[in-house]
């Protein structure tokens, strides 16, 4: 009986200890990054994430260090193991997907397709576990990188519409939300709904009046717009997967 009564207390203590360990590892990792030693930071970030697999902040900094060191396969292996150990950790799955995305610009053209597909699978697992703005936006945006022949842009429309709906429930429109508006316009454009695309970007401009990417789209038409959008969706260009704007103060 005593043990049973003490269990919640033990769990709380264990959780607190894990959080503390995660925080300590994270701080040490950030110190290594600040010192320019990204390689040394990797195991520290991994320790931090092992203790708190859903920690978006730690995973975000980890992936940045991975990009700098090009240790993509190490990170893929790490998240593979982490998600196997913590199959319910929605953000771990999300970051697992991002790790594939981060590798794409440094991969060959066929490998890019394989990586992009693996990323999608992991984003879907994250959404199955938790329908968040970031996961829906991420998967929706990923669909847009696929050539039309694969017919994935309509799936992007659905995800991005949901992401925007979620963002509109937020009390404050964070600047990062503009990404979903832009992507939704692109998704409409890729699905032959040019007017709807323009309307979406115009609506977005009212919410984010200074955004240069929206202005650039609205300033273009026809072939010029097509070229602009395809330039943005070039798989050889690194996608901005930095999630810091999600928690940075505005």
């Amino acid at each position, binding site marked *: 009986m005593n043990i049973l009564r003490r269990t919640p207390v033990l769990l709380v203590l264990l959780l607190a200890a894990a959080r503390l360990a995660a925080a300590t590892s994270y701080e040490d990792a950030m110190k290594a990054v600040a010192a320019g030693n990204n390689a040394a930071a990797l195991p520290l970030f991994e320790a931090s994430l092992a203790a708190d697999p859903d920690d978006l902040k730690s995973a975000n900094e980890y992936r940045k260090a991975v990009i700098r060191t090009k240790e993509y396969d190490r990170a893929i292996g790490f998240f593979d193991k982490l998600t196997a150990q913590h199959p319910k950790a929605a953000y771990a799955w999300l970051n697992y997907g991002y790790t594939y995305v981060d590798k794409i610009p440094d991969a*060959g*053209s*066929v490998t890019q*397709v*394989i990586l992009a597909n693996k990323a999608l699978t992991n984003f879907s697992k994250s959404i199955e576990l938790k329908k968040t703005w970031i996961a829906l936006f991420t998967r929706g945006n990923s669909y847009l990188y696929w050539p039309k*022949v*694969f*017919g994935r842009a309509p799936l992007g429309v659905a995800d991005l519409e949901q992401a925007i709906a979620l963002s509109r429930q937020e009390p404050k429109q964070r600047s990062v939300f503009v990404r979903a508006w832009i992507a939704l316009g692109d998704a409409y454009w890729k699905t032959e709904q040019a007017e709807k695309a323009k309307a979406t970007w115009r609506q977005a401009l009212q919410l984010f009046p200074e955004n240069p990417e929206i202005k650039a789209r609205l300033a273009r038409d026809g072939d010029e717009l097509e070229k602009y959008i395809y330039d943005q969706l070039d798989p*050889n260009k690194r996608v901005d997967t930095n999630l810091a704007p999600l928690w940075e103060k505005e």
Partner: protein
Amino acid sequence: MSRALLLALLLLPAVPPSPIRFEEIGGVVGARMRHHTRKFKGKYAGVLGMFTSGGAAAAVGDYDGDGDEDLFVTDSDAGRPNHLLRNQLAETGKLGFVDVAKEAGVAGGNDERSIVTDALWFDADNDGHADLLVARFGTPVLYRDLGNGKFEDISVKAGLTKFGNTIAVIAFDYDNDGRLDLLFGNYFQPVNLIDLPNPHVLPDNLDDAVNGGGVTLWKNVTVPGSHDIRFAEVTEKAGLAKHTGWTLDVGHGDLDNDGWPDLYFADDYGTDRLFMNNRDGTFRDATKEALGGLDTKKGMNVEMADFDRDGWLDIYVTNITDEYMKECNMLWHNSGDGTFTDLSKETGTCNTLWGWGAKFGDFDNDGWEDLFAADGLRSAGKENYIPVLLEMIIRPGVDFTDVGSWPAIGTMSWSGYQKKKLFRNLGTLAFKEMAAEAGVDNDRDGRGVALGDFDNDGKLDIYETNADQESLLYRNVSPASPGTAHWIELNLIGTKSNRDAIGARVTLKIGSVALIREVNGGNGHAAQSSKRLHFGLGAAAKIGSLEIRWPSGLVEKLATASVPLDRITTIREGSGAVNERKSR
């Protein structure tokens, strides 16, 4: 006048560029040849057919020495004859071709065990008669030109009995000993695809494959003066054996201006290679330091020219840039210090879709080398193979090497119906695509691009081979105002150097501008261009100087008066311009 306006006027060209125009005359002049890809049997027929969809090749050369360019055009299906198209221009005064392959004895090669893939004219025994090498998925065929319009198959006698899945071949004198050697680019490993013993023959990785056929280098060991042509394999000795990529094309040129030929290999499924000549019969792999690392692209074509007129040969490699593979070509600009920088994006030559052969040539005789590029893989039914292929590519644990893993293509198209590209060199490190305007934007499944002045009018024509389709001959009909598009063409004859003068470099100066050209032995995918060097001179009324650096090392300065404008001139090593033409 404002400074801005003055600057704008200064930047305007003195003469507006003349148009580039071609008309397709293949059918009219008897040069339109239908190619047939090999039809395989058995359960892997579709996939093997897809992986061997090349073989449509052409080689330009004046084999009969009558002063006009002839053509050898290949076919690939079992029992289909190759074509030796003899140009009638010198005899009749009118451009026209007659297929004399059967009489000459060079029609064969597509048998039950072998597939013809490429062809090359070169004078193996320096006797003044063009011999013919026919490359195959199989053993090569070497025909010796007997000098009477007939050829003799001497492959076995010459020692060329090694089986290989060769897709590209060049002749060059790698050791500058005066005899032309042969470099074979091999796609698959040496397995007989027609009688496949093991289905694991495809690339082990689609971006970084190392299980291809690599290259084989054959040294010409013919005793000088003898017609007993012999070759000996020296791949390993020369330091080329470690290259095991899926070679689709090989090219040579003197990239460091030291008088020795260097090599570039374009590999499908990644890892092109640059080998520099050590001047001692060996090469060193300089890929990483020269190109900044290994690529993952699908290299298809190697072409070399000094496109920016800085005195250093640059390299153009086509890759795949289509709806799902966004690779971009590579225009390796030679920095002159052993390194190269890819300027394909900056120059506007990045995208030639599913690239194949591409050649530099000054099509408007303005003194700047333009670029024509073939493209297109398979134009068939409306259904697209790419989504079907994707299902296989993303399947976890799929074994790419297994022919059985690949879905059959059936009647589907795959990157087909692609428009060819013609890039006009604007002379400002920029090119303008103008294939439609020039009349060369056909949508066939292009493979080889062979350039030559088939009608001896001083304008470069284009012969394009197409897989499983008819070839095209584009006659250059670009109009030019009199006196604004001068030219010269040079036939070089080596004496101490190899007789074809392959590797010889000509430097022509007009004022402070130096144009360089090198005689090459078959650079470019599936097509050998004319060995006759063509220079467009623009409005220049005279040549400042003309210097030839022969492979033997002799540097010969020619009296400019001996090389008249708007004429074809023959130059013999050590003797300057000569009046030399033989005819059968």
